[in-house]
């Protein structure tokens, strides 16, 4: 493991940055103002598929690029800088799970996911609080029946598949299902202008082949999903807060009040310098978490929760300081700093809130 990017990762980062230049924050506004029901640019999604991003976490033998979590983190960090939305996070992570734990039948789907752009959404537990699942699977002859609800499922209105957890005899199991008409999907626009859905399952029939992985693998799948998704969200938050901070520092250097640049006020300087320090810490813990996942180190679970808790907290601080230091301008919808604040709050809540992850870290550290 290393903190410095390899040449290969650096190249990936550069191409991602180029790609997302075409998807600036203005695009988020545009989609929102159009009441766009998809919530992301389908043209951009197409380009991402062409770059092979859905297969970054998939082994080469199954058609992926096997760039690892650190490589995927580089993509999410760039997404964070421009607040770019797409189903790539859940699709790439779900593809990784299929690659690693899926049946032959499920692995056969990887080609259409990686090259055909079929998207997958992921629903962990039932709420962002990550308390016990409210979805239950029962056996019914040669089928399963799935009942229950899921909250805050990203892009479920456009996803082709859903990877979800449900309790079977009280044990958490993972299923990959088609997003069919049998699933009730109520979609709402969230603060970050993205679309999230509440899913209801009322005795939805699943074939036995919907189960992902053997019984013994279920805990590993759960751990990989919670840790991986949150490490990547932390990378997104890192990009987001870095961009928000750079914009804020830029504004401090150009905005005048009382005849001087506001960046010359020591109180603001000290707050900016402290925030700089905090963002440096986030950067290190995000890298450490992604690297630990790549190394298959069991400590990764703790590191990923630390990363998410810390990144959420500092993204909150960075965007609050951003709005405050922009002043009245920062309160207007015309200025983009508010978009960073809104995305930061939603990302913090996805796949486990700040307090859930702080608590998870402490429990993993036995206290």
């Amino acid at each position, binding site marked *: 493991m290393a903190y410095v990017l390899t040449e290969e990762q650096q190249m990936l980062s550069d191409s991602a940055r180029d790609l997302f230049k075409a998807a600036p924050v203005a695009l988020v506004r545009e989609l929102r103002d159009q009441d766009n029901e998809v919530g992301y640019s389908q043209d951009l999604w197409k380009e991402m598929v062409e770059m092979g991003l859905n297969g970054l976490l998939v082994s080469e033998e199954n058609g992926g690029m096997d760039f690892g979590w650190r490589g995927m983190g580089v993509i999410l960090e760039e997404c964070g800088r421009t607040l770019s939305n797409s189903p790539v996070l859940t699709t790439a992570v779900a593809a990784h799970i299929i690659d690693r734990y899926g049946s032959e039948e499920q692995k056969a789907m990887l080609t259409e996911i990686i090259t055909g752009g079929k998207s997958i959404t992921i629903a962990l537990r039932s709420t962002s609080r990550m308390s016990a699942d409210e979805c239950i699977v029962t056996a019914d002859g040669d089928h399963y029946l799935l009942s229950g609800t899921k909250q805050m499922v990203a892009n479920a209105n456009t996803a082709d598949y859903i990877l979800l957890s449900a309790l079977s005899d009280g044990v958490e199991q993972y299923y990959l299902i088609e997003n069919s008409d049998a699933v009730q999907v109520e979609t709402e626009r969230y603060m970050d202008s993205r679309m*999230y859905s509440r899913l209801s399952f009322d005795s939805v029939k699943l074939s036995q082949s919907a189960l992902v992985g053997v019984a013994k693998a279920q805990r590993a799948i759960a751990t990989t999903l919670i840790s991986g998704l949150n490490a990547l969200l932390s990378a997104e938050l890192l990009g987001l807060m870095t961009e928000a901070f750079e914009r804020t520092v830029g504004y401090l250097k150009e905005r005048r009040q009382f005849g001087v640049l506001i960046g010359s006020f020591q109180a603001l300087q000290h707050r900016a310098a402290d925030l700089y320090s905090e963002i440096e810490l986030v950067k290190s813990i995000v890298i450490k978490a992604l690297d630990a996942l790549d190394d298959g180190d069991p400590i990764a679970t703790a590191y990923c929760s630390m990363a998410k808790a810390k990144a959420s907290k500092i993204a909150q601080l960075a965007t609050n300081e951003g709005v405050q230091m922009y002043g*009245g301008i920062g*309160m207007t919808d015309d200025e983009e700093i508010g978009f960073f604040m809104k995305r930061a709050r939603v990302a913090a809540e996805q796949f486990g809130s700040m307090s859930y992850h702080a608590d998870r870290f402490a429990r993993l550290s036995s206290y």
Partner: protein
Amino acid sequence: MSLEDFRKEVIDFIEANCAESMRQPMVKESDTYWGGRNATFQNEDQERWFTAMAERGWTTPTWPKEYGGGGLSKAEAKILKQEMDKRKCRPPLLSFGIWMLGPALLQFGSEEQRQQYLPDIIQGKTRWCQGYSEPGAGSDLAGLQTSAISDGDHYIVNGQKVWTSYGDKADMIFALVRTDQSVKKQMGITFLLVDMDTEGVSTQPIKLISGKSPFCETFFDNVRVPKANVIGEENAGWTVAKYLLTHERSAISSAVDADMLTPLSYYAKNSIGVDETGVLKDSILRSDIVEWEIDAAAFKFTLERINEEMKAGQAIGAKSSFMKYYGSELNKRKYELRLQVEGADGLVWDGERTNEGKVARQFCRTKGNSIEGGTSEVQLNIISKHILGLPS
């Protein structure tokens, strides 16, 4: 009339004129009555309540009778307020004329100006808005650039104001304009009244990060304004402005206070639940909520204490800056926690289920608390200088 008789009269008056529907909390825009040239009433109850109050001048209970005010003594006004509060009566009229311009006119206006403007404020005939801030100025209010060039007995006004609340609905604006470029910035400012119907005045609403807002931008393009519309002396507008800012600051901090009545822990228990010993299930969030609730209670007691000290004759002075600062930051902290308490549902932005994303939008709106009416940084500067006496 004895105070006891007065109380009886007030009660009879309320019972006779304030219908049950005027005793419900105001939730929609149309529940509020702001008056003005183009005003319409929501319904007969609203009209009856407003008309009865305005007839007695009780829209402004303590203003002098000679201008149509209520002319009540402090003790009488207190009784009126008590009985209205007890019955949860809605205010019959919301008005920047009452809260801001009126006090300035009573303090700085000429007799002629008082007679011209106060009765229409009291009777809700003129709706006023405030024109202070400018896009370039921000916290440096005195750095304003909207110019008023003398042209005989008129000024020609050019420039732009921002954050003019309800500028698009107001009949008149009280604005700060620059009448002398050559002197220290505070010395060349004039307090000027402008009719919004004058040629060259236009407005445009501002959209905030929380969505639609009452705020507007107001543009002045070669607007001719009579010099008779100056309040106080030409180039002495800064004194009037400072007087009004103190009013505004107190108003904001008490608004924050009202919002604080529902404990955060109430929402948390509903949304998160408690364990078998009655303790909130999310112990880390609970720890933050405890800290906030202690601060909120201590702040509430502090407002009570300062209020009592004022009654005992102590000057409030720069303490209004402390209240503004702390109240704003407290409210921002509250909504950060509220979002975490509500989880996913608190993040929804659109749709009926969440009342158009009420929590998320309130959250966004609170970020303005520490900017409007003087930023937190400006308040800290004031505390540092005027309370602590630290050198500049």
